[in-house]
Structure formats: structure tokens, C-alpha cells
């Protein structure tokens, strides 16, 4: 058996240098291998969310996405168009920082007149079993927003005098969801609708 390498300044720095360079080389290689697949997975996730929150569209909303201003921040906005190029749905990637833990992002789909078509939770860190019921695959709670127009319907939770029944034991998450939807609606009314000429 070979004897163990002695710990001298030279041997220690050399060994660390070699290990670090080898692993960064390996990681660069793996990164280049997986980069396309990761981009594709992210894009797929977004397309999936978009098809759920808008009527069937014939364009590629992701490639035509643009940013809109909202309360000193900006949101991603996607337009769904029918075969004639008419805008039939608007998806806005909105967020709230009033959530129970961290902030969460919601994709809100609106009809051109401002009525909510569908909403879907994208990313969140809400409590499993409680706040995560806002997710579509956990419960159909978030369907309550569909068909409501925030200008005539109050989309706050019932505890705040609105029309949305909060999730049991997760009022903060429900409030935050309403906040996110409202933010998307406001941004649409102020920034998108005037420019669409509808």
C-alpha cells in the first residue's frame, strides 16, 4: 500500500487545487449537458400553466411575453391570441409578499374584459396540509375566483368582507392569494388594457 501523502504547504495547496479544478471542470460539463433540459422543463412548466389559465390560444405567448409595471415593480404578462390574432386571454405572473412564509407566485388568467378566467399557484412555501390547499392539485379552493370580475366582485376573503371563502385554518394564505390576484387585475387594468385598444 502506498504511503500517505505528507501535509506540507506545497502538497496541501496542490491537492486542493487539483481537486477543485477537477470538480469545477466536471460541473461545467454536467451543467452544459443539463442546461437545455432544465430550460425546457422550466418552459414546459410555464406553458402548462398558461394553457390552464387562458382559453385555447394559437400563438406562442412565452416568446411574446413582456413586462408591465406594478406598484414600483414589474410583472410578466403573456397574451393569448386566437387564430385571427385577436387577444382572447391575458395571463399575468403575479406575486404576493403577504404570504404565511416567504412570497408566492400565482399565474392569473384574465379575459379581455377583466373577468378572471382561471388562476394557478406557481411557487410557494406555504404549510403542507394547510396553506398549500391553494394549489390546484391539492384542492379546488382556488376555483372560487373563476368568473369573478374584481371591479364588481369583492375578491377579498369573507373575513375581510369579500366573497371568497378562506381556506380553513389558513386565512393568511387565502388573503395572500387574493392579494396576488388583485395585483394582477390592477396591473392589467392600468397597464395592459388601455394599450390593447379593447
Amino acid at each position, binding site marked *: 500500500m502506498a504511503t*500517505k501523502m505528507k501535509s506540507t504547504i506545497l502538497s496541501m495547496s496542490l491537492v*486542493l487545487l487539483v481537486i477543485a479544478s477537477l*470538480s469545477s471542470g466536471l460541473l461545467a460539463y*454536467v451543467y452544459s449537458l*443539463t442546461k437545455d*433540459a432544465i430550460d425546457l*422543463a422550466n418552459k414546459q*412548466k410555464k406553458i402548462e400553466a398558461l394553457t390552464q389559465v387562458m382559453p385555447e390560444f394559437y400563438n406562442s405567448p412565452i416568446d411574446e411575453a413582456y413586462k408591465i409595471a406594478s406598484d414600483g415593480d414589474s410583472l410578466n404578462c403573456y397574451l393569448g391570441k386566437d387564430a385571427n390574432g385577436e387577444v382572447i386571454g391575458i395571463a399575468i405572473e403575479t406575486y404576493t409578499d403577504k404570504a404565511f412564509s416567504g412570497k408566492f407566485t400565482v399565474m392569473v388568467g384574465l379575459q379581455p374584459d377583466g373577468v378572471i378566467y382561471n388562476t394557478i399557484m406557481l411557487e410557494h412555501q406555504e404549510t403542507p396540509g*394547510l396553506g398549500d390547499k391553494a394549489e390546484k392539485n391539492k384542492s379546488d379552493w382556488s376555483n372560487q375566483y373563476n368568473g369573478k370580475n374584481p371591479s364588481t366582485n369583492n375578491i377579498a376573503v369573507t373575513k375581510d368582507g369579500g366573497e371568497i371563502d378562506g381556506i380553513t385554518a389558513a386565512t393568511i394564505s387565502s388573503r395572500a392569494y387574493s392579494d396576488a390576484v388583485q395585483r394582477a387585475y390592477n396591473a392589467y387594468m392600468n397597464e395592459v388594457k388601455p394599450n390593447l385598444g379593447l
Partner: protein
Amino acid sequence: MSNTNKLSILTKGFLKENAVFVMLLGMCPALGTTTSAVNGMGMGLATMFVLVMSNIVVSLIKNLIPDKVRIPSYIVIIATFVTIVDLSMHAYIPSLYKALGLFIPLIVVNCVVLGRAEAFASKNNVLDSILDGLGMGLGFTLALVILGGVREILGSGSIFGIDLHIFPGDGMLVFVLAPGAFIALGYIIAITNKINKKFQKA
């Protein structure tokens, strides 16, 4: 080394030296990711991959690493494999990545992995180190699946996502939340101790 010895290297991680239930290592991922059996299994398998790979590399180059810098060297090796798992999982199993994403980078600081590199791989040959990594990794996976399974059954009334219809409502929420993780873990550790004691007497 005889064959019975090889077998014991592989199997000691299942019960006798189970990383979670007996040595109480790797508590953070064990408690954090086990809200369901599937999550536990994903985390366990990811950890096992890192464990086997880092054990192989460490045992291959153990004589080239000067003693004083062995810990940083091991950490760099482990971190490399963790990042590989992180990237590949994100690329090819996005649904699992969504559930575990936050905890994957934390495998780097899982003391099970560094512990096996330091305590086993740096003193043994490659084959034994692979067996050790596999055994410890399987034991870790087993522990996470049991813990995740118990919490899923009691907390959501389902197992591996299949509804068992044993509760009228949603199940006992506390088991999905953090306190339930500790309660379930405590009972499982007690049972493991009981079984291990019986084996020692026999």
C-alpha cells in the same frame, strides 16, 4: 476479507447502525422532507447516490490527500456530486425537484455523507466503500420512507399518494407539520432500540 464480512458491511446500515434511527445523523433532511413517503424516498435515493459516489472517490484518492486538508477535500468532492444530482434532477425529474428542491443542496452538509467518507471510505478499499455507501444509503432511504409513510398515513390518510380512506376528513394534520415529524421519529427510534436490544440478547 470473508464474504460474511462483506455482507455485514452492506447490511449494518439497515438496522444495527441505521443512520437516522440509531446514529441520529442527517436529522435535517430526515425531518424536513418526510411529509410523504414519495418525498422521503426521493431524498433517500439522492443521498444514496451522493454517498456511493463520494465513498468511491474518497477511497480511490485517500492516499493522495494530505491529512490536514482531508475535510475540505471531502466536502468539495461531496458538493460536486450533490450539484450533479441537483442539476440532473432539475432537468429530468422536475416534479420531484419541485418537492425536494430546497433540500437537495443541503445533502452537502448531511453528516451521514461526510461521516462515511471520514469514518469508512478513507480507511477501506473501493469495493468495501461502495458496499458501505450502498448499505448506509439504503438504510437512510428506508428510514426516510418509513418516517414519511407513517406521517403520510396519519397526516393525510394516504400512502404513496394513494388514498386509504381511513379518516373521515383529512387526517391528523399535526403529523404533516414539523411537530409530527418529531413525534413520529421518537416512536420509531424507540421501536428500533427495542428490536436492536432483542438482537443483541439472541
